[in-house]
């Protein structure tokens, strides 16, 4: 690992010698008792440029969550280089914000206290955090629900609370695992616009996992398409559509074309 690392450093590969996030030959396999190990990720390499939104698009079970957890520092890759700002990721970093596949709210805390959890864990005692949390909540349309309990919210509202919680400490890297996967189409489109809006305001770099082609195309600067397990990169597509993106873009030729290309890489269209 260290050898690969220094070799890469010496080589100084690629146009950008120090991209925000750099992933080289990342592999992950899981030991299975009495069976051959399960290879979830096979030699995945790509860069994550500062301030960009990159989607990981792939079929269910291909290893997207696994890769995201590796980047989040929640899991160590079996092999390969995983660097954020030139530093190997070995554990979760304070400047990361993670939105999980499920909202993961604490049922015993109010909405506001759920959002403030990262601040509390950091023992960050300042009134500023509370104001920031309240502002985020009103930004996602949850003003007036600060003191509600998660059980009183709909699934979409819970996911918005989770988004606020991931943003409250102003992370530089936002890692999102199919955050809108369980939402209905309408709410999902609203949430996508909301995410783009928030990113425009904060300038955070975003790594976004999804299995929806249109979601990936609509949101991203770049779409990394994964093959079936073991995941390798089937295609890497830059989306030339300008920001801010508007819902009408979903019907333009470029959008369809890119969707088509992603579909071909996934093997679902010809």
């Amino acid at each position, binding site marked *: 690992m260290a050898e690969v690392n220094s070799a890469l450093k010496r080589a100084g590969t690629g146009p950008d010698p120090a991209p925000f996030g750099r992933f080289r030959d990342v592999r992950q396999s899981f030991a299975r008792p009495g069976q051959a190990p399960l290879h979830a990720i096979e030699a995945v390499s790509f860069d994550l440029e500062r301030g960009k939104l990159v989607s990981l698009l792939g079929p269910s079970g291909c290893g997207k969550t696994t890769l995201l957890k590796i980047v*989040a*520092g*929640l899991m160590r890759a079996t092999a390969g280089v995983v660097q954020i700002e030139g530093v190997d990721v070995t*554990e*979760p970093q*304070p400047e*990361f914000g*993670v939105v*999980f596949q*499920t909202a*993961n709210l*604490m*049922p*015993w805390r109010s909405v506001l206290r759920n959002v403030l*959890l*990262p601040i*509390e*864990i*950091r023992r960050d005692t300042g009134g500023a955090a509370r104001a920031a949390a309240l502002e985020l909540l009103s930004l996602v349309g949850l003003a007036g629900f600060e003191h509600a*309990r998660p*059980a009183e919210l709909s699934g979409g509202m819970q996911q918005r609370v989770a988004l606020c919680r991931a943003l409250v400490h102003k992370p530089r890297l936002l890692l999102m695992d199919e955050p809108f996967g369980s939402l209905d189409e309408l709410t999902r489109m609203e949430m996508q616009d909301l995410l783009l809006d928030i990113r425009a305001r904060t300038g955070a770099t975003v790594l976004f996992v999804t299995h929806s082609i249109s979601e990936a195309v609509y949101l991203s600067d770049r779409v990394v398409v994964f093959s079936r397990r073991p995941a390798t990169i089937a295609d890497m597509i830059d989306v030339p559509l300008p920001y801010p993106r508007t819902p009408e873009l979903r019907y333009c030729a470029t959008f369809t074309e890119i969707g088509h290309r992603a579909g071909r890489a996934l093997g679902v269209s010809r």
Partner: protein
Amino acid sequence: MKRLLLERALYPLLGLAVIVVAWQLYTQLYAVSRIVLPSPSDIALASVRHFALLLAQTWPTLGATVLGFVIALVLGIPLAVCVANSRVLNLTLYPILVATQSVPKVAIAPIVLVWFGFGMESKLAIAFLVAFFPIVVDTATGLRSTPPGLLELARSLRASPWQVFSKVQMPAALPFVFSGAKVAITLAVIGAVIGEFVGSVDGLGNLLLAANSQLESPLAWAALIWLSALGIVLFAAVALVERLVVPWGHSGR
């Protein structure tokens, strides 16, 4: 919501009324001896006549029950924390705990009596012993079934082990703790009465035995009903505390 509450109180009370009336009629129509089965009115009368005595004998029983229960909480919860967080402790203690559970509590009572004598200590010890197990087991179960998603969230935020325990594991386990506590308080009453049966100088259990041996059945029955009421009140008190402390979810029971 109000309506539901009313229904939930109304129907059991109606059922109770039917039983009491049937009981009263039966004892009067068939002229059942009040030694064999006193009528509800006999029992009510005895309750009123011996009110001061019954009340005086309630305190020792109540004291032993509550104290035994509280000690079980104070010792049981930390033990559960250790068992839930340490594999070695879990492997060592859990089988022992389960094994002690198969010892009939009535059978230990005479031994406890030898150790602690006829005073408060014996019944307290038995109340504690029976209350201890459900508290330890349910708390440990609760601590072990923290939603994995919340643990992962805590890890992603780099929470310290103490923060994980105090902000995630413990609150998530609270509904389980209360579910154990509700069983424990009921058992603690039984434990205290066993203690009083085996040997004591006061308490409702003691009064019940004494009245019974003097063929004062109405008083014995009155003591029995006071004991049941005591159990219900204590259970309700724990359930009330649960509502205040765990407003987000009830363990049901």
